[in-house]
């Protein structure tokens, strides 16, 4: 059987992915105690786990150097997709939302709105779909600061509990879409290693149910 590589997003998704793998019967000890190594062989399954940052998971899968990947739908929406998105893993659940300072009327003016976000493509296409012209400002860190400083009228960001928003006097005025972790597969690998990849997908699906 072909020994496949799966790129897994570091951080919270890694932890939940490993829990899933363990439910599937995979021995994840080497990945649980990684030291400084970034690639680990699963001892009892033909699979190597590559730990990577979310956007890099997509890059590795698109280039085919990893056959599969686990990444949030947020990153997929932002980066575009030329791969197969085969499974909604359910975990890592949150949502994209539009938030403004408490009491602010985002649509109450004829002036062009400014929106700060870490996800400029998501923000742009959302407002495009509503037929609203906004200018999007890319922010790398805590986006909540932008409206507080008067840089933007609102933010588009991932919201989980809403705690950070609340603490900074912001509130959600629109939900944009739900997000969760996805299993993605390189298009060529799917065709070349169908039994191996479908075997893995079915195992995942069975453990999720």
């Amino acid at each position, binding site marked *: 059987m072909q020994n496949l590589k799966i790129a897994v997003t570091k951080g919270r998704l890694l932890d939940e992915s490993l829990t899933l793998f363990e439910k599937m019967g995979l021995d994840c000890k080497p990945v649980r105690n990684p030291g400084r190594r970034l690639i680990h062989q699963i001892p009892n399954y033909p699979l190597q786990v590559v730990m990577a940052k979310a956007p890099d998971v997509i*890059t590795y899968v*698109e*280039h*085919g*150097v990893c056959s599969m990947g686990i990444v949030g739908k947020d990153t997929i929406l932002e980066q575009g*997709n030329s*791969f*197969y*998105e*085969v*499974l*909604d893993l359910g975990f890592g659940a949150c949502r994209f939302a539009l938030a403004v300072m408490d009491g602010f009327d985002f649509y109450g003016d004829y002036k062009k709105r400014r929106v700060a976000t870490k996800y400029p493509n998501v923000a742009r296409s959302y407002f495009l779909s509503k037929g609203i012209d906004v200018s999007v400002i890319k922010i790398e860190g805590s986006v909540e600061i932008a409206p507080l400083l008067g840089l933007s009228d609102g933010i588009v960001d991932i919201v989980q509990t809403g705690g950070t928003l609340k603490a900074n006097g912001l509130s959600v005025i629109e939900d944009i879409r739900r997000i969760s972790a996805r299993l993605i*597969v*390189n*298009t*060529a*690998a*799917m*065709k*070349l290693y*169908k039994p191996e990849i479908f075997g893995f997908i079915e195992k995942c699906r069975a453990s999720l149910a």
Partner: protein
Amino acid sequence: MEIYKVNTPEGTRDRLFAECVEKRYVQHAMISLFEKRGYSEVITPEVEYYDLFVKAQNPLPQESMLKLVDCEGRLLVLRPDCTTPIARVAATRLKDFPFPQRLYYNQNIFRANGLDTGSDSDITQCGIELIGAPGLRGDVEAIAMAIDALCSAGAEKFHIELGHVDFFTGLASGLGIGKKRKDALRNCIESKNFAMLEDLIGSISGGEADCLRKLPYLFGGAEVLEEAFSLTDNEVARSAVKYLSTIYRELDTAGRGKYVRFDLGLVQSIDYYSGLVYRGFMEGAGTVVLAGGRYDNLIGGFGLPLPSTGFAVYVDSLISCLPPVEITPLETLVHYEPGMLSEALDLLDSLPKGTAELSPCTSFNETMALAREKGLKQILAVSENGITEAKLDAKP
């Protein structure tokens, strides 16, 4: 700016020595095959009017084309695709010739990719267009050509995957849903997004819906066709499957069945293609090495409806899966006495290609020093007395 003196533009590179040998070898192998089978070369301009690619219902987004402005202010693009210009040629320059016409090309296309994606912006494509050849015989010839082209280049572990746009369109029109939902459905199948597909089809029941649910799984060997056939009563979809079976039988009889696979969820660019679509996959490449299909409506856009099919091989992707070539190392420096140039050149021509070069030095000692520096095995000195050989020891 200083860095622009040393860097090549995003997505481009210099190719040296073995890279050129590999590329020319693969191109030469495929071109000789095309010519043997009666295909003639066309070279279209590197730049074309932007309008050409917009009018031709081309699915290329405008941001993926590299643009220039000509001296009259008209918008030009660097050739983003080989087939559309050839369609133009067929409908204009070739319109009074008898069809089918068999054409091949070996040229670069240019694409604007995002920054730092590692994708090439100049992509070499070597392919054929079989113009004015409708139906089964045209499709079978094109697929056989695709298989033989990859074999001729030395490829072994590859397969050509066939799909048919009617399978999806037949099923989707049986659902009675609008264009917007149909497009969403197509996107799900294209990206094998099982979860979202389920959400979209959701409450719809009936044969077509059940079959669409399974569509992302319907890929693999010829057994997929039987499965697909048994899954639906839809006439359009069924006749697409029958057609694929017939093609498979023809190719199998011709000894090429082992290279053929199917994916009924191959729904990319179905507005552009009109029947059979195909792609080539090869072990070692993360992307397709070949892509093509039937485009019966494209040339009609230029005023002459001609059913046609064709494919392009992505030469660089193909090469990345082939074993590297060994290039012949340089071994000999040819030194010559005054007046002996002609004899020295004759000697060079008689030696195996790439193994010898001429010394630019007038004194034999300088030639010796140069040969040592280059790490060569021998010097052949040409004088009036003939050729003398001087072996060099391995580097101290």
